[in-house]
């Protein structure tokens, strides 16, 4: 067996043993939740009381309660009789420090959560599975990768369906049906907007691609989407990234201030920006051969580009280290329950 293999094996055994010890002693990998019970009637009465207080204050100040608030108060009061006996419980994550009260006694509102504990362990083991790719491609990495891709796609699809199809499309086309079924909060002022028939038809035509015949029909909505998107983006780019960027580059090369006189730093900064923009543009100008003055300017442009790429690379490294810090933070403090070092300590 190679030396490096032995060392890695030892690391794994020690790490695994430590995990087993901490798990066995019950001091890690547990998730707790706080249960908060709400009474609908009390909540509404509290809101009405708040509006009344504001009204009293406004009257004292010689003002009148805004119409929107008066209407809101009336709506709340009208719904009061239907709220008798309606309660609900809100479940929130509880931190480690919330397990006991200020008096040191266990907080009865904070309870152990099996579902969140399982989630915590899946997250921790998933982190290890993804990190195992550093050792080499393996089945655990493949499994975790597939779970991430599948869960992300499913999540995006469900959210997209709910917000796009249900709320935006059917909410506009058949608002009364939606209000009576899945969208009770849909504004009563919302009436059928027939214009939304067009996106519905285009969507159906787009899905026609899946039909055994006439798949070409899906090219029509696709052409519409591409054309519309290109048009919208062109205008935005022309304004924000072309005209405005040219305007931003027109700047004084020598900067004076009435109080401080010549601002050397600012002046050098502006000169560097202008030279950088011009030389980089020359580098990408291929109508002339890059020789003589054009070649020299293009060479300066390359330096500017290299510095930009270097800055980008440096920021990328910082970003990647921040991501691993976040994962370690999760493993150490959320999962392993290690003591959190105080910053001002």
């Amino acid at each position, binding site marked *: 067996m190679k030396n*490096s293999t032995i060392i890695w094996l030892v*690391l794994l055994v020690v790490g695994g043993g430590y995990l087993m010890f901490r798990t066995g002693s019950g001091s890690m990998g547990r998730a707790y939740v706080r249960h908060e019970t709400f009474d609908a009637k009390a909540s509404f009465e509290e809101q009405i009381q708040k509006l009344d207080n504001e009204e009293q204050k406004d009257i004292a100040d010689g003002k009148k309660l805004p119409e*929107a*608030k008066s209407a*809101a108060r009336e709506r709340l009061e009208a719904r009061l009789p239907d709220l008798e006996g309606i309660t609900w419980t809100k479940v929130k994550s509880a931190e480690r420090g919330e397990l006991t009260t200020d008096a040191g006694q266990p907080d009865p509102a904070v309870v152990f959560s099996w579902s969140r504990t399982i989630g915590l362990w899946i997250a921790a083991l998933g982190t290890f599975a993804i990190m195992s790719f*550093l*050792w080499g491609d393996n089945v655990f990495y493949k499994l975790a990768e597939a779970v991430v891709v599948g869960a992300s796609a499913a*999540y*995006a699809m469900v*959210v*997209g369906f709910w*917000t*796009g199809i249900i*709320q*935006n499309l059917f*909410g506009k086309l058949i608002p009364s049906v939606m209000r009576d079924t899945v*969208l009770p*909060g*849909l*504004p*009563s*002022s*919302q009436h059928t907007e027939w214009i939304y028939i067009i996106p519905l038809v285009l969507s159906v035509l787009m899905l026609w691609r899946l039909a055994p015949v006439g798949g070409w029909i899906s090219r029509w909505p696709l052409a519409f989407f591409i054309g519309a998107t290109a048009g*919208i*983006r062109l205008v*935005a*780019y022309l*304004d*924000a990234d072309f005209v*405005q*960027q040219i*305007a*931003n580059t027109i700047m004084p090369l020598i900067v004076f201030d009435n109080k401080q006189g010549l601002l050397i730093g600012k002046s050098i900064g502006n000169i560097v920006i202008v030279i950088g923009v011009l030389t980089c543009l020359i580098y990408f100008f291929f109508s002339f051969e890059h020789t003589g003055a054009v070649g020299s300017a293009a060479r300066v442009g390359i330096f500017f580009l290299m510095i*930009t790429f270097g*800055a*980008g690379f*440096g*920021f*990328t*490294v*910082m*970003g*990647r*280290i*921040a*991501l*691993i*810090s*976040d*994962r*370690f*933070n999760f493993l*150490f403090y959320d999962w392993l329950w*290690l003591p*959190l*070092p*105080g*910053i*001002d*300590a």
Partner: protein
Amino acid sequence: MSDFFRNLDRRWIFLVMGLSVAIPMLMGVVFPEEPSQEVLDVFNAVEDLEDGSNILMAYDYDPASKGELEPMAAAFVRHCAEKTHKLYFITLWPAAIPMLQKNIEILNREYPEYTYGEHYVNLGFRPGNEGVIKVVVTDLKKLYGNDVAGTDLNELPMTANLKNIQGMDLIVNVSAGTPGTKEWVQYAGTPFDIKMVAGVTGVGYTPLVPYVPAQLTGVLGAIKAAAEYEEAVLQNYPELRKNPATQEGLRRMGPQLVAHMLIITLIIIGNIIFFMDRKRGVA
């Protein structure tokens, strides 16, 4: 010695890199931060607004980039809450909904006086990428009839009379990519002259710098700027220091420094070996 580095298994480098991040984190190594001018520009954009101003909190990031962006997103929320600004949370990313909720939990936990519908509202997500910005900048309720919980926006005091996001005093965008800061600048900030600041990932920072300061008042780049922003907030609101959660970005800068030193050392060693080999005619 050079043969040792030449034949070094890359997994040893991964292990050393892991330790260079883990050890400072476990030891709680924190280095002092001083806010740069660019960070102060962002800070002042929030600070100089009148108390109770309207701020659109456009948070476009998902769990994959939360390590980089969560500290600055939380710092923005705390700073705005200290100023009693009214916050309108919105996202163009479907996976950002839990991220919005996490930031709203900060308000619920640390600022109990903040009431839903009066001081903050969660508009949630709508599909359509930059198309959403294009619509809400002229007619918010065309796309957002309800908030994230399905409540009619006309029933919430802070949105009842809100026509579009041109009524915002500031857009705060925390972005991990597309759609994100670039789209908010292109479709809202620049054409409608709405003041805007942003916080972005390291990868996304350099392409946004040309927008500063004319089209973007300031931009925070990655965890370093997040730590500086936290420091700026803490210097102005020292009572927040009692809460360790306000110093997440600062706490992450210890591992950053050690890991960066390691990378610089490895790059220098790699270059020395390269030039040695070239001199010997091996490379």
